[in-house]
């Protein structure tokens, strides 16, 4: 392969990873609607879900352009199999109780803010433009999830116990988020600026967990390849995708 085609393949992989991350988490959050503790929280989770869906649409549309095979955004959302999705494992984890969802969301948001802040200086115009918008959206998401993490962690005995259980359940999936060694070609070309994403992510986790009076579980070291980013998923993803894709597959080409 030429340098250009290597770079192109890396770019497509990168764009799909983040499109899938956003889409799968949007779907999970959508499952809360009408089930959250209060109508206002339904709205909050649905708003975050829709922001993520918007990010996924931009990324899939861009993926189609990079890929150059005449696909559109719907192709990537509806017509790929679970093994072709490259989202990190944390976003496909089941909602559990509200504290589980908050733990998952906080760990994701802490990473996503660091990611998009760094991506603002990407040499790729499309990604840099998306990063400018997504960084603002994601900061608000983090404010919401971090707020709940602290409120529940530093709340009653019961809320503390549940928040700790949620954090313990989601923690093993956090390390994977900032562990990618195979995007080196993109780093060298400045498409994915290496601006201390992992450092910012770790610092945010440490400060929020301390403020919430929670105990950080032991750090899990993960392989820098394999896992969700490379299409190896838990049993939860196929079920989630069945629900997401069933309508489009039952009525191909259907429009409103």
């Amino acid at each position, binding site marked *: 392969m030429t340098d250009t085609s290597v770079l192109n393949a890396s770019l497509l992989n990168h764009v799909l990873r983040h499109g899938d991350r956003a889409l799968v988490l949007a779907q999970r959050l959508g499952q809360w609607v009408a089930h959250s*503790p*209060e*109508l*206002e*929280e339904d*709205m*909050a989770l649905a*708003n975050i879900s829709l922001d993520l869906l918007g990010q996924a649409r931009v990324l899939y549309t861009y993926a189609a352009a990079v890929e150059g095979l005449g696909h559109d955004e719907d192709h990537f959302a509806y017509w790929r199999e679970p093994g072709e999705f490259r989202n990190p494992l944390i976003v496909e984890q089941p909602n559990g109780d509200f504290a589980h969802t908050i733990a998952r969301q906080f760990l994701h948001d802490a990473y996503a803010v660091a990611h998009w802040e760094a991506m603002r200086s990407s040499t790729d115009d499309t990604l840099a433009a998306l990063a400018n918008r997504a960084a603002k959206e994601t900061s*608000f998401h983090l*404010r*919401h999830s971090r*707020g709940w993490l602290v*409120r529940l962690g530093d709340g009653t005995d019961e809320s503390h116990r549940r928040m700790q259980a949620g954090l313990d359940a989601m923690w093993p999936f956090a390390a994977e988020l900032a562990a990618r060694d195979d995007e080196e070609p993109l780093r060298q070309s400045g498409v994915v600026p290496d601006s201390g994403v992992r450092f910012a992510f770790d610092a945010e986790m440490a400060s929020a967990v301390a403020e919430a009076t929670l105990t950080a579980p032991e750090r899990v070291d993960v392989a820098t390849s394999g896992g969700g980013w490379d299409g190896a998923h838990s049993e939860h993803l196929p079920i989630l995708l069945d629900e997401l894709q069933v309508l489009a597959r039952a009525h191909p080409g259907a429009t409103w």
Partner: protein
Amino acid sequence: MSPGWPLWEVFVRARRGVNHVHFGSVHAADEETALQAARDLFTRRQEGVSIWVVRSSDVVASDPDDEDELFDPAEGKDYRFPTDYKLPAEVDHM
């Protein structure tokens, strides 16, 4: 099941230089979540540049039964309106 969160009144300033106007109310556990819920419900379409939330129980309201004594006495007191006063002819465009 509702956790029984308190009610908050939401005021939004549409743009700089105008007053905050009452927009509605939200249920929320505390000040911070009230602000966030207000943002999600009332300012998603760039309706505002500033939000106030006030705990509804902190709003002191007049009693509808007191309407007569509070508001009706203003009737017939035209001198309370600027239009009741004639300007001298030499004052234009006041």
